[in-house]
């Protein structure tokens, strides 16, 4: 049971993270989630900036990962979240879970993302060809939490 939590400006390598996750001899399943900056439908996204609450962010991610490890039998859990300026198609977040059984891996990875979306102090601002906008929280992200309660 290893926890790997990183909040960083620089990009991350899914390939390297996956290699770390697959090393555990007793874990036959690795589930990963990657979140990317995607294009907007109604206007052109120039870049995104990600603000966070230093100190609280890391604690929140550790709490979420620890809670997942208490709920399911997991090997390594990795959470990486970027902050600062991001361009379209850049990577924002990575969650990786190694586990003996796939159901635990899928559940834990989705649980971590659902909690991260609602509890971890990150805020996105979109810089578009029409101006700058703070991203609004989505009702669907609140609803997503309910299944875990």
């Amino acid at each position: 049971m290893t926890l790997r939590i990183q909040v960083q400006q620089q990009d991350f390598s899914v390939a390297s993270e996956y290699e770390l996750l697959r090393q555990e001899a007793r874990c036959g399943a690795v589930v990963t989630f990657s979140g990317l900056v995607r294009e907007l439908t109604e206007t052109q996204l120039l870049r995104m900036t990600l603000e966070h609450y230093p100190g609280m962010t890391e604690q929140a991610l550790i709490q979420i990962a620890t809670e997942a490890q208490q709920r399911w039998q997991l090997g390594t859990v990795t959470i990486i979240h970027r902050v600062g300026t991001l361009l379209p198609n850049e990577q924002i977040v990575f969650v990786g879970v190694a586990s003996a059984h796939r159901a635990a891996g899928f559940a834990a990875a989705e649980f971590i993302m659902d909690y991260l979306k609602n509890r971890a102090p990150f805020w996105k601002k979109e810089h578009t060809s029409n101006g700058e906008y703070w991203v609004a929280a989505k009702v669907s992200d609140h609803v997503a939490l309910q299944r875990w309660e």
Partner: protein
Amino acid sequence: MLKILFFAALRERLACANTSLDLQGQVLTARQVLDRLAGQSALWQQHLADAELLCAVNQQLVTLSHPVAAGDELAFFPPVTGG
């Protein structure tokens, strides 16, 4: 002193990233602190009245009924949008 932080859209609207409050030995709830801050100006009143605001004490999400005292770090911010 109570350290108070604001983030994201709230920080921009208040044009303030952090401030402090002398509690003079009192223990207040986060809501009482919010009310005191709102009294500072019409602008602050307007933006701190947002029912969606989240609150953290010592870097843990809490409800507005949570107590704070001198030495604590209190933060107010809009709903989070990471991930």
